[in-house]
Each structure stands twice: as structure tokens, then as C-alpha cells.
């Protein structure tokens, strides 16, 4: 920025000094580039660059800033430093802003003028800077547990014992997310909780069959909670049917179906002749 002009008749001393400061400037610029991972995006980088103008942020030259930014990007490219896409998007926009600031406004062109865009960018930089200062002031305040302290022995006494259940709003949201996205997360897992196994059905039928003196529909043997959801109902029905076949094989029940697709009926074997 403020390099000495090699053509001027400057004294040797100043020359040496100029060369030194040039090196320093270059080192600084390279340090910035090496630092690129340390920046939190293009706006952060722009803020850092704008500080090199050494003026009040409200008086910043956005045109100069655009040039600084574009130079930075060029140098980073020539040093083959990987830049995230948003830095390049910003570079394209900076180039656009620069052209809008330099060219006379096109009366045909609608939308914001170069000055309006520049003003907003300056506002953004000032606001970010202000929030950073505010954050620093906030963190510099006296803090609980560091500078001032709460009661060390809170007293919680007495007879009325009450259980209080707690949950945070985060628990609540995560629980909901859990329920709603359960399907997404278990694409390959078998939904065990929707499967009624034959072992379970056999167990259940064996205890119920004692009461089945009369013919009753197989569907009446489905466990509670397995009759509404079609998937669960199907699983419970299949398991109960298989279990009833097993029981028939063991000679414990009789099965009957009056016609095709009619309900399957069953009763305890020997129920008809009163045991």
C-alpha cells in the first residue's frame, strides 16, 4: 500500500527502510493467507483486512477493501491454497461491487446502486466488529462461580417430600425428533416391536385355550394393542394362526373354517363332549 516508489530519489536509508517495510508487509500478507483456516468466513477476513486501512470503520473505503480482498484471493490462488467456496463467491461479488462502484450508474439497471451495496457491507463490518467488542465486554464481566458466588450450602429441609420430575426443552425436542425420525435411522433393522412371534402366540394361546369351550374366532385371541395398526395386526394374526395349527397338531384344539375367507374358528378339544 505505502511502498516507496523505486523511481524517486529517496536517500539510501529510506530505501532500505522501504524495502524492509515491504518485506514486513509481504510477510504479514502471507501470514494472513496461511491463517486462512483461522478465519470464520469471508466477512471475518474482510473485517481483518479493513483494519489495515487504519481508519474508523465508518470511514472505510469499500473500494479499497474490495481490491484488498481480490488481491488476497489472487495471492492465495497463486500459493495454491485451497479456499472454501464461499471465499470465491465473495470474490466474485467483490469484483461485481468494484465494477458497480467504478462505472457510472446505468439508468436502465434496476436494483441497488453500488453505493447502497457498499454502505451495507460497511454496516455489516461495523456491526460484526461491534458485536465482537460487546462479546469481549460481556466475558470481561464478573461471572458467577468465578468472581462472585452463590450460597455454598443451600438448605433444603423438611417433611413434605415431593417427587419432581424434570426434563429440559432439549430433552423434549430430542425425544420428539427421536420418535419422528426413528424410521429414517433404522433402514435395515427389523422392527422387532411390530413383530409378534409364534412363541409368544403359543404361550398366549395355551393360557387362553382353557376358556375356549365354545367355538370362537381366532381374531379374538389377538393380544391387546395388536389389533389396530395393520402391520401389527397382521403379524399377530399370522403368529396366532401358526400357534393354533401347532396346538391342533398336539391335539389340544380343533379348528374350523366354514368357507373360503370365512373367519377361522377354534375351541378346546373335547369341549364339545363336555370333556
Amino acid at each position, binding site marked *: 500500500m505505502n511502498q516507496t516508489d523505486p523511481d524517486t530519489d529517496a536517500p539510501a536509508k529510506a530505501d532500505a527502510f522501504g524495502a524492509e517495510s515491504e518485506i514486513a508487509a509481504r510477510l504479514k500478507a502471507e501470514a494472513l493467507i496461511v491463517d486462512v483456516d483461522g478465519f470464520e468466513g469471508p466477512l471475518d477476513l474482510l473485517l481483518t483486512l479493513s483494519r489495515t486501512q487504519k481508519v474508523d470503520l465508518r470511514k472505510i473505503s469499500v473500494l479499497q477493501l474490495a481490491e484488498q480482498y481480490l488481491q488476497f484471493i489472487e495471492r492465495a490462488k497463486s500459493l495454491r491454497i485451497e479456499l472454501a467456496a464461499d471465499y470465491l463467491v465473495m470474490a466474485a461479488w467483490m469484483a461485481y461491487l468494484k465494477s458497480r462502484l467504478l462505472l457510472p450508474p446505468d439508468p436502465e439497471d434496476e436494483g*441497488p446502486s453500488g453505493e447502497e451495496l457498499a454502505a*451495507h457491507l460497511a454496516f455489516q463490518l461495523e456491526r460484526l466488529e461491534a*458485536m465482537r467488542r460487546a*462479546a469481549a465486554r460481556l466475558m470481561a464481566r464478573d461471572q458467577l462461580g468465578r468472581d462472585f458466588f452463590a450460597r455454598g450450602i443451600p438448605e433444603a429441609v423438611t417433611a413434605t417430600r415431593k417427587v419432581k420430575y424434570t426434563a429440559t426443552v432439549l430433552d423434549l425436542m430430542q425425544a420428539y425428533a427421536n420418535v419422528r425420525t426413528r424410521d429414517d435411522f433404522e433402514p435395515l433393522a427389523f422392527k422387532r416391536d411390530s413383530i409378534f412371534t409364534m412363541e409368544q402366540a403359543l404361550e398366549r394361546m395355551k393360557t387362553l385355550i382353557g376358556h375356549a369351550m365354545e367355538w370362537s374366532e381366532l381374531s379374538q385371541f389377538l393380544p391387546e394393542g395388536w389389533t389396530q395398526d395393520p402391520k401389527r395386526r397382521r403379524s399377530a394374526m399370522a403368529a396366532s394362526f401358526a400357534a393354533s395349527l401347532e396346538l391342533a397338531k398336539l391335539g389340544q384344539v380343533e379348528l374350523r373354517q366354514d368357507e373360503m375367507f370365512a373367519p377361522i374358528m377354534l375351541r378346546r378339544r373335547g369341549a364339545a363332549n363336555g370333556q
Partner: protein
Amino acid sequence: MDSDLAAENETLFDAPPMAEQERMVEAILFASAEPLSMREISERLPHGCDAAEALAHLRKRYEGRGVRLVKVGDAWAFRTAPDLGFLMQKERIETRKLSRAAIETLAIIAYHQPVTRAEIEEIRGVSVSRGTLDMLMDMEWIRLGRRRMTPGRPVTFVVTQAFLDHFGLESPRDLPGIRELREAGLLDNRPPPGAMPGIIADDPDEGGAPDDQEEMFE
């Protein structure tokens, strides 16, 4: 009417003298590590007590002491005087070191609240990294505010009483420098003119989707 009058007389009659009320509030607040709201205090006082007046007396009594009565939002708590912090090395709690991003996000929420995620991103120029809001909520320094009444009805974030307590603030209005910032227009929500690049995070909610409740309940 008669019975109202009777009830009023009774409560006037029942309420302990103010000095006694002050003692009671003192005991209640001393016993609790957390700030207690005026309502919580009142609920525990005998009928007819004036918690507000008792608190005012108490606050005065503890002025300049090693322990002070401080106001936190609409709640009250005893806290040690900050100038004596050096004596309490043993009690010091090592808090999680917050990242710069987390600190800035917290400050933006405090100064701009209620604020949407998109607005935080616009101010910082980067997207809010995963886990930042999560962590601040976990620390109970921020919570959800009302949804913004703009298209998409985005959720907003605000700071909590625990935040105020932690930083020794009576209310968000007492944040350092907030008035200057407001006067300088730096807390305005100034929409970017037309085409600005990607750092101006378009709220994903504002835009197309008619109503995210819709999507939420699919």
C-alpha cells in the same frame, strides 16, 4: 362485600410486622442457591406479606456487605460481593471454555434478542456451527423465544435468567454498551439491499415453504 372486607381485615391482621417479613425473606433467599422470583417468595411467605417491600429493606441492609442481594430478571438472590472473589479460589468452578464462535453467538443473542438463527448467521457472516446453539441451550444460557411472525415463522432465541445470573445482570437492558449500540443503529435489523452474496444467509424458512408446521407433522 362483607366477606371481602372481613377477609381483608383478617389478612391485615395476620401479616407479621415488616421486620419479621424481612427476616423471612432473608431466610428463604439464603437457603436457596438459585434466584427466586417474587412470586415464589410470596408463595412461601405467610398470607398478607409484602415481599416487594421486604426485599427493598433487605437490599438496603446488605449494601456494602460481603454478601449482596441482587436482582436477576424478575428474581432475587444473595451473591458474594465481586470484589471479594479472590478469597473464593476453592469455590471457583472451572467453566467450559467457550469457543469464539459460541461467545459471539451468545453475545448476538443477548444484544439482538429475540433473534432467529438466520439473523445470527447474517451478523457473523457464517453459518451457526452444529452444536453451538445446542451447547448454549444445554448451559441454560439461551432458550427458545416466540416464533417470528414472518413467512416461515422461524424460531427465535433469547437469553435466560441463568444467563443474567451468571453475568450479574439485572436485565438484558443492563448489557454493557447496549444503549450506545442501539443509538448507533448497530442493533437494527437492516435488510441487505437486493443481491448480496452467500454470507447473507437467506433464512431457509423465509422463502418457499408455506408453513413448516406442515412439514413437521408429516
